[in-house]
């Protein structure tokens, strides 16, 4: 049979370039900047813009692995509890005399183990969805945090620990640098490695991935473990920002994180979306909140704005798609 020639170079398409989801986010961020700048004289101020990132980046570390998990069509609602548990363990051990550096290592280890347990339960019990498993572990992990610290707060960390959440390297907040490094790492992992490719494959078609030799279970466990680890990283920064720890910290973070991932264009139906989108969403929500905070908008109005933004952002591509299908 005569071989047919198949191109392996892609022509650059302006349409494809322009129609990327991320542009919508960029436009929205610009809009937020313009709006905020016109609302408050304090918004366009280098120090303020910089310090604002310190306020909203703590949970952004969880956004990175959550992108992986949602890409695969799963979800992890236990992350906030993992933050609480690993933070509480760290604070408790430190207050019992463990050197701070070791306490931080234990914090990361606790988060990793919690994530790993989630992952193992999910792949070992395929008949249970990740919603149920992480719903149960969400209660359990926070429950353990309560058992450990009871009604106490633990803290009085060494001075240098404050560095994580409050200090600058040069004039750039350390947390921003740390986030940039992690974001780059997770972005490369997702877009440049076989691991990332497999995540997409699983999200699009887990069965076909398995039949193609992709170690679906292993990858799921890794993704959930990463979510645990990054929750512990969040715990480090959040604990540093609060200067102490309690079992009830990070309440409600899971939904905020999921909202950011979804707003970033990552589809919970699995298999679609990019890291950059989620990162943009972090900044979009962060600066929107911050800007509205500068004009002291009420908490309830802020809730409504954020809810509508989420709906609007996911509805737009649906409408576009529908029109294309019918027209």
């Amino acid at each position, binding site marked *: 049979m005569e071989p047919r020639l*198949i191109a392996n170079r892609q022509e650059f398409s302006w349409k494809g370039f322009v129609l990327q989801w991320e542009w919508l986010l960029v436009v929205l961020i610009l809009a937020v900047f313009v709006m905020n700048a016109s609302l408050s004289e304090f918004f366009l101020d280098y120090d303020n813009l910089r310090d604002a990132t310190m306020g909203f980046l703590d949970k952004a570390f969880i956004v990175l692995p959550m992108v992986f998990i949602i890409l695969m069509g799963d979800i992890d609602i236990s992350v906030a509890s993992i933050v609480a548990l690993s933070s509480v363990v760290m604070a408790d051990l430190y207050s019992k005399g463990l050197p701070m550096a070791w306490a931080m290592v234990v914090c990361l280890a606790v988060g990793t183990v919690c994530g790993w347990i989630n992952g193992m339960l999910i792949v070992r019990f395929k008949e249970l969805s990740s919603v149920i498993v992480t719903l149960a572990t969400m209660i359990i992990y926070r429950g353990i945090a309560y058992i450990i610290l009871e009604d106490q707060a633990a803290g009085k960390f060494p001075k240098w620990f404050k560095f994580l959440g409050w200090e600058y390297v040069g004039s750039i907040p350390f947390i921003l640098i740390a986030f940039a490094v992690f974001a780059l790492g997770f972005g490369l992992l997702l877009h*440049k490695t*076989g691991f990332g490719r*497999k995540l997409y494959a699983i999200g699009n078609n887990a*069965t*076909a991935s398995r039949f193609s030799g992709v170690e679906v279970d292993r990858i799921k466990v890794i993704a959930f473990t990463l979510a645990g680890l990054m929750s512990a990283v969040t715990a480090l920064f959040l604990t540093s920002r609060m200067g102490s720890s309690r079992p009830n910290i990070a309440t409600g973070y899971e939904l905020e994180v999921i909202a950011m991932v979804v707003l970033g264009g990552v589809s919970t139906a699995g298999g679609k979306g990019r890291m950059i989108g989620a990162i943009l969403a972090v900044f979009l929500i962060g600066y929107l909140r911050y800007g509205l905070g500068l004009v002291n908008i009420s908490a309830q109005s802020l809730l409504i704005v954020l809810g509508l933004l989420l709906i609007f952002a996911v509805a737009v591509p649906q409408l576009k798609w529908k029109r294309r299908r019918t027209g």
Partner: protein
Amino acid sequence: MAETEYVLELKGITKIFPGVKALDDVYFKLRPGEIHALMGENGAGKSTFIKVITGVHRPDEGEMFLNGRKVDFRHPTDAQKAGIAAIYQHVTCYPDLSVTENIYMGHEKIASGTKRVLWKEMHEEAGRLLRELGASFSPKTQMGALSVAEQQIVEIAKALSVDAKIIIMDEPTAALTRSESEELYRIAERLRDQGKSIIFISHRFEDMYRLAGVVTVFRDSRYIGTWNVDEISNHDLIIAMVGREISQLFPKKEAQIGEEVLRTEGLGRTGYFADVAFSLRRGEILGLTGLVGAGRTEVCQAIFGIDRPDKGKIFVKGREVRIRSPREAMGLGIGYLPEDRQKQGLVLQWAIGRNITLSTLEKITAKGALQPRKELDIAKRLAEKVGVKAKSVFDLVSSLSGGNQQKVVFAKLLTADLDVLILDEPTKGVDVGAKSAIYDIIGDLACAGYGVILVSSEMPEIIGLCDRVAVMREGRITAMLNRDELTQEAILAASMDDAEQSRDQRRVRA
């Protein structure tokens, strides 16, 4: 006028799917009280045509007349109301619901006043329909608990439950045993005698000769012609369907048979298969056939590490191995082309290139990073090798025709260093041209020293391509036929039991 003569008439129907013209200017006429066979190779467009009639798909061009009146079905319910019922090829069941509900979903019996669902009546009626069809399971059974054959019977009952003027059956016998088929013939004839019209699709010639008065043939999405069954010879019919002499289809290439690469001994998985023993050598094509549901796929997937067998041994190149995952199987040199290419073989939303390299990402990874250049080169080379018709490796797989999709799955297999290829129904739903191309590829692979296991339900394919054939029935190998023993009769005899009747009952009870 023709209005009185035909209950159903379709003219110039064209249906285009993204990338595929599934129907191209097709004609069809159906008389009352007629059993009309619709034949054609896989992918000829038969099922699509049926879905046009039942309002699932809307044609891009063409007209449809019911009793001489022009109709335009926008929704399956429109067709139902017009008295058309269909048994679809791929079972469309609700696994979580009862048999009764599966039969009546969409046209439940309800009390006229209270709108209450009349369970008792439906169960009784369903029970009656099932008894008529010779099934002995209760209508209250959950659908998901039934075997494929039993589910097919439910589908038939579903079509019968609507008091339809026109009944369409898309390969209803594919999963049935001979006695079950007999039952179906009887019912079809009775319906015909009541003045109903039946459109009947089947790949089995015996079905057509036993039942149909008229046969229409499609080929490559086109209408070829309509004949009275007793007026056309078998030979001419095959030429009409295939477009050439069938011997051309299977150019058996003689490969060098080498050492043994795969052997199983007493392989078994509780509830699925037992005592499966065979060996495979380099260059050999081993056929694995039997009726649908005989357990062939289960055996293949057990060897490939999808499910774990709980008894027996597997030897690869003489060494006993335990295979726990597809990845391990591939590491040992075993590749599997799955039965359902859309669900198991491909990531449909992805481009050709990515699909091809999915199973061997390690090969295109250097220092942890994927090498896009290398990836695209490999994809291009393999796509060209198996002859995918596409513009570039960036074309989405979902835009390809079934045959081309299947070729992409083949290309995936070729990326890895394999010795054994297990091909599960590689020509299912593939058009004629692609089919012969696939046969070519299979022949080439054998020549290149792969050991090939070819699972197929198509008799000519098995007979034309294989060196040896294992026939399975109800989870066991019932015959191992050498090339010189290969006849249709021998295979059929091994796939169906003489004491079919008693076994049917046993299986249904299980």
